[in-house]
């Protein structure tokens, strides 16, 4: 079962990885220790692969820094679930193959255990409460199934749609 990590609304990229840490992003191993380094220091230490980050609207607002999304992907989160995402963060996560779902899962409490079923598109708690996760569009599915934009682009040399001449 995955642990729920609850966060508030408008979580910005300076909270995820402050810009001041940029010079120290020298390896994935190091970046893995940075998410919420000042805002919630226990997160990076205790988060386990498959855990689910649940937040309020506009998750990831602020800077375009992709290493904010990469730091979370390196934690091997099962998904981030929020009613909406800042658009640059959404693209960055998509490009890195980090699954995002636009849904309100704040019925689950921090620390609660849930089952995340990508196939069925649901989050389910032990006591049977369920949050439905919207099915991603064809474009997002194509990139996620490839493991991100880089593997997609290496394989196809274009986006999942024709390029204008």
């Amino acid at each position: 079962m995955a642990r729920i990590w609850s966060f508030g609304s408008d979580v910005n990229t300076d909270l995820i990885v402050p810009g001041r840490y940029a010079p120290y992003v020298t390896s994935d191993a190091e970046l893995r220790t940075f998410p919420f380094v000042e805002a919630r220091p226990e997160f990076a230490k205790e988060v386990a692969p498959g855990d689910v980050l649940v937040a309020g609207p506009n998750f990831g607002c602020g800077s375009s820094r992709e290493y904010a999304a990469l730091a979370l992907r390196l934690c091997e989160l099962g998904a981030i679930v929020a009613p909406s995402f800042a658009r640059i963060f959404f693209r960055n996560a998509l490009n890195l193959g980090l699954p995002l779902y636009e849904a309100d899962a704040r019925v689950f409490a921090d620390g609660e255990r849930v089952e995340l079923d990508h196939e069925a598109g649901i989050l389910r708690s032990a006591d049977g409460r369920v949050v439905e996760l919207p099915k991603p569009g064809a474009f997002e599915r194509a990139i996620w199934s490839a493991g991100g934009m880089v593997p997609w682009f290496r394989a196809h040399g274009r986006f999942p749609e024709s390029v204008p001449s």
Partner: protein
Amino acid sequence: MTNLTEQILSRAAGRRVHRGEIATLRPQRVMLHDSIAPSVIRILTQDLGVPRVADPERLAVVIDHVAPAANVATATNQQALRAWVREQGIAQFFDAGRGICHQVLIEEHLVAPGDVVIGSDSHSTTYGAVCAFGTGMGSTDVAVALASGCTWLRVPDAIRIDVSGAFAPGFGPKDLALEIVGRLGAGGATYAVLEIFGLDELSLAGRMTVASMAVECGAKAGLVWQGGLGAHGFAPAPWLELPSANAKYAKRIAIDLADLTHRVARPGRVDDLVAVDDLASFPVDVVYVGTCTNGRLEDLHTVANVLRGRRVAHGTRLMIVPASAQVLADAVADGTFTTLLAAGAVFGPPGCGACIGRHLGVLAPGETCVFTGNRNFSGRMGSPDARIHLASPHDAAHAALTGRLGAALAAEASSTELALAH
């Protein structure tokens, strides 16, 4: 005619596009800065295996985020970036000290009305000042754009903002920008574009202030209608038409400039606006003037007009970082620089300064800053225990003069203006 967003994206896509669909398009300009360049170059060359930029003439590279370099690691990254720029034959390269990327690209006329511009920086919405669809992207998106010459966008909804009236004395474009963010909220324009009309009389600098902050309510771009741009040396795009009355907008907002009040955004949230009068007066450690939002000549003029012949309050530091070398040169030429130095200002080299907390006046725990920039997030400018208030250049200048922000400022400010009037 449809909204500006669909007109501009249709042209770049080479076909008629509609909101909600995903379009592949070829941006007229890609901007890359020093902070993101190392990861972009690594993804481009190592991960994508593409040795050469597809359209080097469309790429502009600027060293501004940590400029000049603050430590050996950054200096080494910038050394590698210079070598890469030479090897790729990129003509549009602006080294440390030339200025903030968005300011430089507009000064150099590297963006034009109706262009699509993608930048490795969230404040790429600033290009909306010249009615260009400027939008920020992360490293992988920029690397793929450099590899292919193309990018993809979901054609967004648009929010229409109609501005009327004129600024009262003491008010300016930053007050309008804060009003827009306050009305929409930090996530109020997520997945949408702001289209702003009624600013034909506004300066280019003022348009940049407003467009830069579009991203602070989550907007993908912030387009200021191109009316009046000719006066600032930008020929309007002849194919770009005023949207008709029945053009589709997700939301419409009307703002009368005469209704603006003196407000600041309290620490932590850009949309947590409070009237200066309603704040209990508190001492200010640092007043920081600069950034792509408010580091231009007209902003320095505003500050100089308040401080002329006076001194920054004892116990308060005034830090000024011009948005570009051109801004600095103009401020030197017209005496503004001398006025501000005489008042006790400390100048940093043109660039992003301490806006991202990496150099040039970062904040200590417990310090209070009044900032003309665009973000007041915890830890943004240094210690997470510093407090950042976003303010207009006018209100920041008064905070520098009195050493305080809050209720007392309003009284001090009006007596200062009276004194200046005599």
